């Protein structure tokens, strides 16, 4: 299990590097090498580290540990084919990590990042439309049951594309450089991560790489189903590249516009759900 966790960490960091590289190439820049994010994390972990004098010490450190803990748990839920309700619960709890990162340091930039992360909490709503739809169609939220259902009826991606699109938007909103990534936009320095430097930043990079790995892996498992692990990795890479295209070509939205866009996405999925229920 620990081996899979470490594998996920390094793959996730590599995926982050590929994401940056792809965006750079799409925008006509050379971009950093794809292992840049792995080097970054190592570099941060060697740096001098302290807790800012203004920070709320316990919270400042605890959110880093919580970030690592929840995403390791999410990975194990996928590995053991557990309940996707728990997986999405963890995804929601990640919001608390974002708030905590920004608020705990006392930095004005961190605070802006945290306030924006509160605003962008609407990004979780498409997720519940997704869960509701999956539960309605497959009759279970156990990942093993969903994979079995897809083995019998074909991938959910083809059975209910709007739901997959909603989940895609959810993943997009969590990518770096995405049009929804208002909490770490450049005008507020690094947003809620501004004060987490050194070892704290390295640990956060590890946690966020796990997050990217888990979200992509979950999308493939939920909407494509049980296929060999190598094929899963290839699909994750393709998914990431498509996300890179969106991130490279779309401008950053203004904070409240992201809320409106995500609410509209939810409304569309809700209309789709009602239509499915009425037809069925």
């Amino acid at each position, binding site marked *: 299990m620990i081996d899979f966790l470490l594998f996920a960490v390094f793959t996730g960091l590599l995926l982050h590097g590929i994401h940056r590289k792809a965006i750079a190439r799409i925008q006509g820049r050379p971009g950093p090498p794809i292992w840049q994010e792995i080097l970054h994390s190592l570099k941060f972990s060697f740096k001098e*580290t302290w807790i800012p004098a203004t920070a709320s010490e316990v919270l400042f450190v605890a959110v880093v540990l919580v970030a690592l803990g929840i995403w390791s748990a999410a990975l*194990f839920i996928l590995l053991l084919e557990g309940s996707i309700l728990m997986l999405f619960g963890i995804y929601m709890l990640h919001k608390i990590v974002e708030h905590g990162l920004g608020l705990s340091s006392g930095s004005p930039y961190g605070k802006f990042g945290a306030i924006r992360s509160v605003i962008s909490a609407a990004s979780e709503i498409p997720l519940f439309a997704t869960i509701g739809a999956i539960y309605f169609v497959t009759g279970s939220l156990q990942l093993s049951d969903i994979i079995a259902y897809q083995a019998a009826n074909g991938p959910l991606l083809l059975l209910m594309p709007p739901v997959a699109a909603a989940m895609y938007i959810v993943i997009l909103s969590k990518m770096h450089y995405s049009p929804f990534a208002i909490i770490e936009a450049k005008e507020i320095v690094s947003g809620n991560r501004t004060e987490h430097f050194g070892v704290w930043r390295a640990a956060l990079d590890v946690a966020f790489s796990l997050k990217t790995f888990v979200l992509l892996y979950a999308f493939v498992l939920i909407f494509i189903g049980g296929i060999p692990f190598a094929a899963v990795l290839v699909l994750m890479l393709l998914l990431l590249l498509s996300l890179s295209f969106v991130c490279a070509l779309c401008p950053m939205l203004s904070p409240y516009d992201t809320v409106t866009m995500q609410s509209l996405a939810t409304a569309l999925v809700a209309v789709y759900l009602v239509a499915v229920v009425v037809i069925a």
Partner: protein
Amino acid sequence: MGTGVTGAICIAAGASAALDMLPLWGAGLLIVVAFPFFVVLLGLWWNASEGEGDIPFIGY
């Protein structure tokens, strides 16, 4: 010290799950608790030095 202990817990949990000595969810739970401490303590063990806390970044 802490790095070694938490790292050992992670490896032991992973190994005992592989050898069927521990249920998978139990091993997972152990790792979920130990792994975050391991990562942070590892960094704190090998990083440059400890300095005094300073005020946050306030712009260029």
